[in-house]
């Protein structure tokens, strides 16, 4: 039996446990103290992981498949969060009616800014999109209307709590559904004419254009699609978290985290970004000490731990970029084996 099959079966078993176990055994498990299920915090972390699966998979559509290094996707997350948040908090809409507007508004916004921005290439596009990400957050916090902050201002936006049994579980499943949708969309894109066009743009935009790909329309569509999925995650987040402000709806570090996840897992693939999201988010939570089964790091006091965690994350980032540029999906997918020769080869390929 090949390693690929072993990993696949193992992954399916773990996924099935994570998805189905809470449904049947939540209350008894909590009273019996079964690992993972005993801690309510675990649902929060699992929901966060699903949220990052959505964002990393969505980024993969524009960054991995189309090859445009978008650095401001958190703008769409925030726009989705504020769209749903405003509809629920100010217009008193029910959550499930307000949610579909999050991806729609995010996609419209992406199409609007995408038309000028996607004419830029390389670094210029990357930083222009980063600028949009920063600027949108600032605008949302500071826009006033008749002297009142339109979107809650610096004090943020409070949403009524969504009345449903087992709230943690409910939002976990909603977020997992969004993650499944994002992966399904990627799967479809990679098998469609649209996806072939995007890959052609990534490999050589002039050639794609000569071959009859409407590059502008394709790029904007890919950008809007990524924005819609990211906005969906934001919309779910706003009702799940009940409170949104500039810091939690437009966190700049998400920009880098989603890219790192896609890269760690393998860009341009269906499951790579999801695998990267699970790995990296677990690692971040473990280093930060908030995982239920965490342990103490040697030589590190509790107070210094978050800082040391960031240093380790930075070093890891550097190592991944240098040594595993094609992502870990290569190992799990059975295409290559993790060996010293592989690391040496990827080092030599990019070194000066």
């Amino acid at each position, binding site marked *: 039996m090949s390693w690929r099959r072993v990993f696949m079966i193992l992954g399916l078993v773990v996924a099935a446990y994570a998805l189905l176990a809470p449904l049947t055994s939540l209350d008894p498990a909590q009273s019996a103290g079964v690992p993972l299920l005993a801690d309510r915090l675990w649902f929060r972390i699992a929901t966060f992981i699903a949220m990052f699966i959505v964002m990393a998979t969505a980024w993969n559509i524009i960054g991995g498949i189309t090859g445009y290094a978008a650095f401001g996707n958190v703008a769409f997350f925030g726009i989705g969060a504020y769209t749903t948040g405003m509809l629920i908090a100010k217009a008193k809409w029910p959550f499930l009616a307000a949610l579909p507007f999050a991806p729609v508004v995010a996609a419209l916004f992406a199409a609007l800014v995408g038309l000028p921005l996607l004419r830029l290439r390389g670094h210029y596009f990357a930083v*222009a999109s980063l*600028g949009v990400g920063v*600027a949108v957050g600032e605008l949302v916090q500071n826009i006033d209307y008749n002297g009142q902050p339109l979107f809650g201002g610096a004090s943020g936006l409070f949403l009524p709590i969504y009345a449903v049994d087992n709230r943690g579980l409910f939002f976990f499943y909603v977020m997992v559904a969004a993650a499944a949708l994002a992966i399904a969309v990627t799967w479809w894109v990679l098998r469609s004419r649209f996806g072939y066009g995007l890959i052609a743009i990534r490999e050589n935009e002039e050639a794609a254009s000569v071959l009859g790909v409407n590059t502008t329309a394709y790029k904007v569509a890919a950008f809007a699609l990524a924005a819609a999925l990211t906005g969906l995650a934001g919309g779910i987040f706003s009702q799940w978290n009940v409170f949104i402000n500039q810091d939690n709806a437009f966190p700049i570090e998400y920009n880098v985290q989603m890219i790192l996840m896609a890269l760690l897992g393998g860009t341009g693939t269906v499951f790579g970004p999801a695998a990267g999201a699970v790995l990296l988010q677990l690692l971040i939570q473990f280093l930060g000490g908030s995982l239920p089964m965490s342990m103490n790091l040697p030589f590190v006091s509790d107070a210094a731990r978050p800082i040391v965690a960031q240093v380790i994350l930075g*070093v890891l*980032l550097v190592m991944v*970029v240098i040594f595993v540029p094609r992502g870990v999906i290569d190992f799990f997918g059975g295409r290559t084996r993790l060996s010293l020769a592989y690391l040496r080869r990827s080092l030599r390929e990019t070194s000066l």
Partner: protein
Amino acid sequence: MADFVQLVILGLLAGGVYVAVGVGFGLVWGVLNIVNLAHGALVIVGGYITWQLFSALHLDPFLTLPIDAVALFVLGYALQRGVINRIIRAPLLFTFLLTFGVNLVIVNILLMVFGSDFRSVTTSYSGQGLELGSIVIPYIRLASLAAAILLAVGLAFVLNRTRIGLAIQAISSDRDAAQLVGIDLRHAYAVTYGLGAACAGVAGGLIALIQAITPTAGEPYTLQAFVVVILGGLGRVSATVVGGLAFGLVEVFAQSIPGSGSVFANAIAFGLMVLVLVTRPQGLMGRLR
């Protein structure tokens, strides 16, 4: 009218810091094709060196600037030689992520060493200024602008009149041809990044003089350096000087808009950048390449 003149002067003075921040960033970008997300962190390292020398040894902050430059040159050289050279042939996303990782490491090491308290450098002449009628020119700002211009002139001199500077320019026009005529690429790349870091260090020293610094205070400067370089146009030191001064003017005028002008300063700066990128991608002063 006096208000307008005062704003123009303040804008040009504010631009001094942006010139200092921008020249090193523009050099690294133009020659190495790296958007250096660790630039702001290097700036703040310079700021902490100045603060440390000022508070422990009572050195005049302006005298610490050469020390900032030398220390950051060494750090930058080692960083490029040891780490960044390893991925110089990789797609641009990788250099982005790598320099972001470096940024994370530097900022958090600073947090470990110095904590997150605000540190400021206050000299005997802080707060004093030259008064010309109703117009006030703060001494520190004026000296900072002079130091920044001096830095830019010095960098231009190194690039145009020294052997290593010409080698750097040769690399920036054609890497492979430069290698063929015998330029040691690894060394020249490391020197380029070292020079960029040295400029960042000087900028950090100036910033410590005009604002209180924390380990995370450098992050806005990375973005602003980018806007400055875009505004001026990539590839020449003089263009970055124009970009820095223009950015200072835009910022000061944006902040003076009555109502909530000041809170939109970032949004205005980025809006301007996107506008320049889309309409005039070579920058205000740049040539098409």
